[in-house]
């Protein structure tokens, strides 16, 4: 498309040369960006003696590190906990946020704008800032060291509501009208008109929520001391304090933790990046 742009200064071959150089520079930078992750995977497959050799491709690749990590530490349990927490948060959050987004975008009621602005104003409040009082509240509710404590406070965030509201604002007005003429109530309209239409944005948000919760560390660190409830990020941070010299084990553990998210990313990269791209000020 843009190659047809007028190029008043350069000949065609010069343009090709510049473009080629540009691509080479981009590729080198992209490789450098990816290098730490490649390095992690590489060490994970290297025997301990090879941990500090400088070759990216292991000379004698082995699965021993993975086997050791999975048998010596209850990583499977940590992963199951992470999965349970992330999936629960994602499902409930999507349910609540689509409801709120629908009402804030398409229903008229007094105080709607004030409500939206107050929700939006929590956009920039981050967990580290409120961690102390939040801990006090969750403790008072008796949710320390429980799945409920891991899941419930993580459900609520303004980002999802905001994106869904924007999406519902962009839908044409007519979509509800047919349903309304048929005498459908608001719940019916939400359930059988709005939700099916939200599938693309909901799948993007589902991935984002799942990843964010899979990767979250500070909240689980604060409220779970019982190792049976540990999520995978806590497991690996604790693993570090026990095996601080065994980098081959640590990189294997890191790979196990990172691989599910990277696979999700490879499959859904377009949806993930598109939905984040639109989260800017618009």
């Amino acid at each position, binding site marked *: 498309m843009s190659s047809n742009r007028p190029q*008043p200064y350069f000949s065609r071959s010069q343009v090709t040369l510049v473009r080629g150089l540009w691509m080479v520079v981009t590729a080198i930078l992209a490789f450098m960006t*990816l290098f730490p992750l490649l390095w992690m995977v590489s060490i994970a497959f290297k025997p301990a003696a090879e941990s500090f050799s400088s070759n990216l491709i292991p000379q004698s690749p082995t699965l021993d590190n993975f086997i050791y990590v999975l048998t010596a530490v209850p990583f499977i349990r940590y992963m199951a906990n992470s999965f349970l927490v992330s999936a629960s948060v994602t499902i409930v959050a999507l349910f609540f946020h689509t409801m709120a987004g629908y009402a804030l975008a398409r229903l008229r009621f007094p105080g709607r704008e004030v409500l939206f602005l107050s929700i939006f104003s929590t956009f920039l409040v*981050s967990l580290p800032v409120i961690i102390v009082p939040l801990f006090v509240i969750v403790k008072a509710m008796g949710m320390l060291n429980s799945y409920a404590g891991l899941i419930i406070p993580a459900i609520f965030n303004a980002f999802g*509501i905001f994106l869904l509201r924007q999406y519902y604002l962009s839908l044409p007005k007519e979509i509800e009208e047919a349903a309304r003429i048929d005498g459908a109530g*608001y719940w019916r309209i939400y359930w059988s008109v709005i939700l099916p239409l939200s599938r693309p944005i909901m799948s993007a948000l589902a991935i984002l929520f799942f990843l964010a919760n899979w*990767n979250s560390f*500070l909240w689980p660190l604060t409220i779970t001391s019982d190792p049976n409830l540990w999520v995978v990020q806590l497991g*690996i941070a604790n693993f570090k304090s026990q095996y601080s010299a065994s980098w081959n084990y640590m990189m294997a553990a890191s790979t196990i933790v990172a691989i599910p998210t990277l696979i999700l990313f490879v499959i859904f990269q377009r949806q993930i990046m598109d939905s984040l791209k639109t989260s800017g*000020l618009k």
Partner: protein
Amino acid sequence: MTTIAETAARRRHAGRTHLSAKHREWIAGYLFVLPDALGLLVFLGVPMALSLVLSVFEVNGFGAYSFVGTKNYLRMWNDPLFWKGAKVTALYAVMLVPLLYTCGLGLALLVQRTDRFNAVMRSMFFAPHMVSLVVVALVWQFMVVDKIGVISRLTAALGIGGFSFLGDPNFALITIVLVSVWFLMGFYMLIFLGGLQDIPRQYYEAAMIDGAGAIARFWFITLPLLKPTSFFVIMVSMVAAVAGAQAFDIIYVMTKGGPANATSVLIVYIYQQAFGFGAFGYAAAMASILVVALMIVTAVFFALTRGGRFNHEQ
């Protein structure tokens, strides 16, 4: 447009059913928003208020609260580690925000053209953002291990080695900044790509016909039209620098605030005071000050940019 008379006539005609339909919509609206509104209130709104309340209390070893007035704030004033934390936080922000802006915009310009090659490159630049910060911290810590880490050896080979990335108080924070940039830059690249997408092509075509070079086009078209995006990026990255989870996670795993408190940003110091020493009141006082500081910075920035409103669509 309906006239007032028409509306009044319709109201008379519709009578009670019209009103109750309206009220039904109201009630539906409130019920739909209720779960989220309640959750945000309990887990975000109340904590923010509670932070201020907690800050005038002291908690003893048995969990009993006693009112202490301004004691926690006075303690803060006289605590050199609080001031150290404030300084480290400011330094972190001063380094992180411009670096993220430059790297984010630079990468976006690099892969701006939509083609298959750039699509792959974008994914590669963004991939670090998908990895958990604990893993990010571990991998980087491994790469900068003194003398034998792959980056330590690389810098030594280039003749700039010989220092400890995480052990030297002069370099530890810089290392943390670089890791943060590596993790966050892909996200800001996407935000900038979204902004670049909205700049009409014709502007560049017109400028090229007028003979404007690449630098002139960037300076006179791209940058001015990117203002709303820039505003968003600077504000969000500033908040991320002062209070973001990435700072906490990376520092907590890599240095725990050391060496010699060189990476002890306020959120890490607050956490240690609360959950290491049980000084909840003191930690809440510091967190309140942090919230106020954030609000002031945001307000000033908002005022300077006239509310972040730009004539973007024109």
